[in-house]
């Protein structure tokens, strides 16, 4: 067997390639797809959101924010999207804003079109030009789509508005034409009214138409043309005629009413109009042609209008008539009363008065004066009737006497009017009309006569039942008799007027005996002619009475009220009572009695009494002035009391009188002013301090604060500082102003501003925290009590301490301020013992002599005066006030006297007390003029000293001023001479 050889049968073969897994790729791709989905979804949501946000934001932009024009470039531009917006939001935003912007521009174009159209409401060409210019300018500045937008929309507005303007202009032209006709009609109506008012409604001469009628015809024709041309509605010409006729009738009726003299005349005119001329009998004759002319313009369409107008005009005239009558009546009444004082109050006197009123009533031409004067006579008659009634009630007269006196007076007062009325003529008609008052009967009377008839029937001067016969009888006289009677009346009137005028002069003591005699002769000459003997005597008595008044006026000047009282009694007793009268007074009384009659006594004494009242009032005023002057002297001499408001007001008056203003810097250099301020501060100054402390503006606050600082702590020669404001400024105000002053002097600044700042701090709610922190559970009062122990003073200072706490002061600072207040307000005083023991010691007092007597000289004088009045063995300068050592002479020691303040209404006074053996205060009672008295001292002790000191100081000031002036003059002279001789510098 052949050898079997092993052959290689197994070989390594390719095993193929195992492909790596693609799972990682798939995972990544899956993540990516997942994330892409999320992204897509969120994108879609966010896109919607962004779109909404953009739209919302764009809508939220205010119209004012959609700037249509860039203020810098002047070009229209849309609003930019806000920063931070995405594209979608920005696009949405921009899209909306663009739309809004375009709308805004459209509005603007429309507005501009309207604005320009308003400027050229009827000028289409003017509008087109201006609007085109505007659009051109706008378009020129604009870019892109805005340019097109402006051109398109602007053109649209321009065209449509231009058409409107053209249509409006055409309409207006027609309306103007129509209005022109209407205006012309109105104007013509006004002209016709004015013409008629001036009487132009009455045709003059042979003219067919009156002036007013011409106007009416012309204008009605004009309106008719307007109707035919279609400018006015049909029928306008008829209305126009009525309108113009109405205007003429209104003017005409006013014209006629204006010529009536009474409401009766006016009623007659209205009746004539109402009946369209059928009833004219009551219309005064002189008015009838005018009323007839007026009737021509009255038609059914305007009669009510004309009558209404007539009624209103008549009302006006009636009201004026009434007012006029009332005014005249008041005047007549005043005149009657004035005359009544001059005339005797009897029948003759009243007849005389009525005569004066009657003559004047017929003589004066003013309307209604006669009615008024008759009313004046009526008042006099009522007064007389009152007097008669009084006498009848007193049984001084019988009923028959009363009736006959009243009738006599009535007829006596009516007669002058009847005579005056008859003197005007138409006596027959007057006699009838005076009784009947028939308008037809009165048609021919004069206006004065008609007025008299109406007024007589209205008055009580005419009693128809009793006086009809009397009136007929007076008016039955012939013309000559009437004329004579009237002349007598006029003479009486003139004489009475002269006596009245002379009496008024006599009442002033300004007539001579010659004047009196001349008048007496004149009266005597008329006696038996125009005057009866009684009337003549009455006029003389009247004059005499006024001479007596004159004597009183002259003789009583300078008499006291007591003297006048005695004089009145003397006259009243017809010279019997002369108690207390001087010979001069008796002589005056007798002179007065010689010039009057017993009937006039009451008038004379009444005059004296009224004078006495006046003198008494003057005396009172003088007394008050003297008292005031004394007070002024006291205050200027340093005796003022600043706690008294009256003194502060007077101090203000003193300074005002001197022209001193305490807020002026010059006041700080005026020694007299400073001296006055130390005793009493003018009220204006106190008011200013209070204003400053309230934060209100004060003029010259710097100067005022300087004064404050000086007075709030005024050092005296004895080392005590005094608060000179006393009670005039409360502690809180003082502390506040102290703060203002301290800040001003340390930090500087305007006092007013400092005060305001402090007030703000004080009133700030946080200030309470500062206060609570300081006081804890305590109060300002308890805080002060802890410091000084006196609850009364503590209560007084509490507001000040509260203020200090609120403004952030520490406890130490406040304590220091309390001490300062106490030291300046309750100063220790050597000679005073205050039993109220403020601050627990007798030695402190608000009434230390340093406080009440600021001037050292005065203080020394006061002590000297007190000391000199103390009995032997008692002295102010003993004991603790002694400057001597009595230790070895104890048995010779004087007892120490203290002054105990006693606050009175007029200031403080001091009572003397001494220190007894038990070292207690005891009242010092001494014997004076046999009586036990408790010595009391006040500022009167040094009143004379003060006067002398002030006079001395004033002289000193004057001398110093003179010296200073002399020095200045000397220097001026020296300069002048130096200049003259060429000394160069001088």
């Amino acid at each position: 067997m052949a050898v079997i050889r092993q052959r290689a049968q197994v070989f390594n073969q390719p095993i193929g390639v195992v492909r790596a897994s693609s799972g990682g790729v798939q995972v990544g791709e899956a993540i990516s797809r997942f994330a892409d989905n999320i992204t897509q979804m969120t994108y879609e949501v966010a896109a919607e959101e962004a779109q909404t946000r953009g739209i919302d934001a764009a809508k939220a932009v205010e119209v004012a924010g959609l700037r249509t024009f860039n203020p810098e470039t002047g070009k229209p531009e849309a609003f930019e999207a806000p920063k931070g917006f995405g594209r979608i939001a920005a696009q949405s935003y921009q899209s909306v804003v663009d739309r809004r912007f375009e709308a805004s521009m459209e509005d603007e174009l429309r507005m501009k079109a309207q604005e320009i159209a308003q400027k050229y409401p009827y000028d289409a060409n003017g509008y087109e030009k201006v609007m085109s210019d505007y659009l051109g300018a706008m378009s020129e500045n604009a870019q892109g789509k805005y340019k097109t937008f402006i051109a398109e929309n602007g053109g649209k507005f321009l065209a449509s508005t231009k058409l409107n303007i053209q249509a409006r202009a055409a309409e207006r032209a027609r309306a103007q034409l129509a209005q022109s006709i209407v205006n012309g009609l109105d104007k013509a109506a006004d002209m016709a009214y004015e013409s008629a008012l001036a009487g132009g409604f009455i045709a003059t001469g042979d003219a067919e138409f009156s002036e007013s009628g011409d106007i009416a015809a012309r204008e009605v024709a004009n309106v008719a043309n307007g109707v035919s041309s279609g400018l006015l509605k049909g029928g306008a010409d008829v209305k126009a005629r009525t309108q113009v006729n109405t205007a003429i009738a209104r003017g005409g009726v006013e014209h006629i009413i204006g010529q009536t003299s009474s409401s009766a005349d006016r009623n007659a005119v209205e009746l004539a109009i109402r009946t369209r001329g059928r009833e004219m009998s009551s219309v005064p004759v002189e008015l009838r042609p005018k009323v007839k002319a007026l009737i021509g313009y009255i038609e059914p369409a305007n009669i009510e209008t004309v009558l209404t107008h007539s009624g209103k005009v008549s009302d006006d005239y009636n009201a004026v008539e009434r007012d006029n009558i009332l005014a005249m009546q008041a005047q007549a009444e005043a005149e009657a009363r004035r005359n009544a004082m001059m005339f005797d109050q009897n029948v003759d006197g009243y007849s005389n008065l009525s005569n004066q009123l009657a003559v004047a009533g017929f003589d004066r031409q003013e309307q209604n004066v006669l009615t008024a004067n008759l009313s004046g006579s009526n008042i006099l008659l009522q007064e007389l009737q009152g007097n008669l009634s009084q006498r009848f009630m007193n049984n001084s007269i019988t009923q028959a006497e009363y009736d006959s006196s009243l009738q006599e007076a009535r007829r006596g007062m009516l007669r002058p009017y009847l005579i005056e009325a008859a003197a005007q003529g138409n006596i027959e008609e007057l006699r009838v009309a005076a009784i009947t008052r028939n308008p037809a009967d009165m048609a021919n009377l004069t206006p004065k006569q008609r007025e008299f008839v109406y007024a007589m029937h209205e008055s009580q001067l005419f009693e128809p039942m009793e006086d009809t016969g009397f009136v007929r009888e007076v008016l039955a006289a012939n013309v000559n008799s009437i004329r004579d009677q009237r002349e007598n009346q006029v003479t009486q009137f003139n004489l009475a007027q002269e006596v009245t005028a002379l009496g008024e002069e006599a009442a002033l003591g300004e007539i001579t005996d010659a004047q009196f005699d001349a008048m007496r002769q004149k009266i005597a000459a008329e006696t038996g002619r125009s005057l009866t003997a009684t009337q003549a005597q009455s006029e003389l008595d009247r004059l005499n009475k006024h001479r007596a008044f004159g004597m009183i006026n002259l003789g009583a000047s300078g008499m006291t009220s007591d003297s006048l009282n005695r004089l009145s009694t003397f006259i009243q007793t017809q010279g019997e009572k002369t108690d207390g009268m001087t010979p001069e007074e008796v002589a005056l009384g007798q002179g007065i009695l010689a010039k009057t009659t017993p009937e006039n006594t009451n008038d004379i004494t009444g005059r004296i009494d009224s004078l006495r009242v006046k003198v008494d009032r003057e005396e009172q005023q003088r007394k008050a002035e003297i008292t005031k002057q004394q007070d002024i002297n006291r205050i200027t001499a340093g005796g003022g009391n600043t706690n008294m408001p009256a003194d502060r007001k007077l101090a203000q008056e003193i300074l005002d009188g001197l022209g001193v203003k305490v807020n002026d810097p010059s006041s700080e250099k005026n020694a007299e002013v400073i001296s006055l301020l130390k005793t009493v501060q003018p009220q204006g100054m106190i008011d200013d301090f209070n204003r400053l402390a309230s934060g209100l503006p004060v003029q010259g606050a710097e100067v005022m604060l300087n004064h404050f600082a000086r007075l709030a702590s005024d050092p005296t020669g004895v080392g005590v500082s005094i608060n000179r404001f006393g009670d005039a400024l409360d502690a809180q105000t003082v502390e506040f102003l102290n703060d203002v002053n301290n800040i001003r002097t340390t930090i500087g600044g305007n006092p007013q501003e400092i005060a305001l700042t402090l007030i703000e701090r004080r009133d700030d709610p946080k200030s309470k925290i500062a206060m609570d922190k300081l006081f804890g559970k305590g109060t300002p009062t308890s805080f002060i009590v802890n410091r000084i122990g006196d609850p009364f003073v503590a209560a007084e200072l509490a507001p000040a301490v509260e203020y200090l706490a609120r403004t952030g002061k520490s406890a130490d600072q406040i304590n220091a301020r309390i001490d300062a207040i106490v030291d300046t307000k309750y100063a220790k005083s050597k000679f005073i013992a205050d039993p109220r023991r403020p601050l627990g010691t007798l030695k402190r007092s608000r009434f230390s002599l340093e406080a009440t007597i600021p001037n050292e000289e005065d203080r020394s004088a006061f002590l000297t005066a007190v000391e000199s009045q103390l009995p032997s063995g008692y002295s102010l300068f003993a004991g603790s006030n002694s400057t001597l050592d009595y230790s070895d002479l104890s048995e010779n020691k004087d007892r120490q006297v203290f002054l105990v303040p006693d606050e009175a209404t007029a200031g403080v006074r001091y009572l003397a007390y001494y220190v007894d053996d038990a070292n207690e205060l005891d009242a010092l009672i001494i014997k004076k003029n046999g009586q036990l008295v408790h010595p009391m001292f006040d500022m009167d002790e040094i009143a004379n000293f003060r006067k002398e000191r002030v006079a001395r100081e004033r002289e000193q000031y004057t001398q110093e001023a003179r010296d200073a002036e002399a020095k200045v003059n000397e220097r001026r002279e020296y300069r002048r001479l130096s200049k003259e001789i060429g000394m160069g510098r001088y």
Partner: protein
Amino acid sequence: MEPITAALMLGSTGLSVFGQLSAGQAAKEASELNAFGIETEAELGKAQAMQMAQARMDEYESASSANLASFAAAGRDIGSDRSVKAFMEKQKEIIGKDIGRMGTQSQMELMKGRQQAAAERTAGRAARTASLFSAASTATSGLYKYQQAK
């Protein structure tokens, strides 16, 4: 934009980027692995060819030995017998050709494997690069959308 929406949008974009980058990286790594496998396969083919060539040589030598023995046994002068020589030469030529073919084949397959590995690597890198671009695109797209919709 609502904060949650914004966070979701940006977060998902980031996540997508991350996913794409991850996929790219995974593709690259897979390609590297595939290339390695291909190269290994190529090396194995080479080793097989060498083994088969050696086996072919062994077979030839064995056959030559047998043939020489047979010829010798047949009494043929191996050194001078031309026929034997020619036969042997022919045998040698055939073996040479086989060996040559085997080498060529092996070379070719090796080359093919290397080319395949290189191609695989290139594909991996391309996938990676593509993932980068894709991620960048996604990030850009995400930010763009965010900007759009913020």
